[in-house]
């Protein structure tokens, strides 16, 4: 049973560029949430996708956008990259409404903005 998979694992971009990160949820899960984890901090909720729609959003600017596909996989797009966008981007999947409250994380995509 495959867990949550993310790609790419590492990438380097320059300021002003755009980036797309991808996530495949755990088998059987229909909800994908994205988190940003800056160095030395806890993950911060970006947004959540369910039934191909953004269901909830954290305190992130519109430069952060996403998409969920019919197979439940998801993309995170960040436009006009800033140095402060350098972080580990984590995808987490769950089955909503959850009967167990469990959230499963991928290993993340580490973005470096130069």
């Amino acid at each position, binding site marked *: 049973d495959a867990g949550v998979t993310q790609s790419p694992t590492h990438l380097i971009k320059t300021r002003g560029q755009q980036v797309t990160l991808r996530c495949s949820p755990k088998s059987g899960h229909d909800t994908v*949430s994205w988190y940003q984890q800056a160095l030395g901090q*806890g993950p911060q909720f970006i947004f959540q996708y369910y039934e191909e729609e953004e269901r*909830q959003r954290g305190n992130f600017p519109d430069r952060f956008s996403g998409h969920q596909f019919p197979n439940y996989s998801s993309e995170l797009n960040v436009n006009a990259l800033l140095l402060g966008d350098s972080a580990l981007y984590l995808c987490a999947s769950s089955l909503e409404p*959850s009967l167990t409250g*469990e959230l499963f994380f991928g290993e993340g995509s580490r973005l470096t903005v130069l």
Partner: protein
Amino acid sequence: QQQVKQSPQSLIVQKGGISIINCAYENTAFDYFPWYQQFPGKGPALLIAIRPDVSEKKEGRFTISFNKSAKQFSLHIMDSQPGDSATYFCAASGYTNAGKSTFGDGTTLTVKP
């Protein structure tokens, strides 16, 4: 506004000792309180979780203590082992929407042999 405050930031414990990490939350709507373990280069993994209808939950060497009136909860790691060395995060969410979790800033635990 940080809704989940975690302490200490770092912790060093001798092998066999007890590791204790504390968290406090503000939003009384939270009703699911998990702890995650994260190793370098990996994503967080659920370790143990509790709901506010119980005051304590134990799974092996890991115990969560929950104080609803104080809005605090803590993780106790008994008989700490070098393999427990990792970063631990507390979190809080609604039980049916763990996907939108609020995390603490993490505690880096080092267990010395």
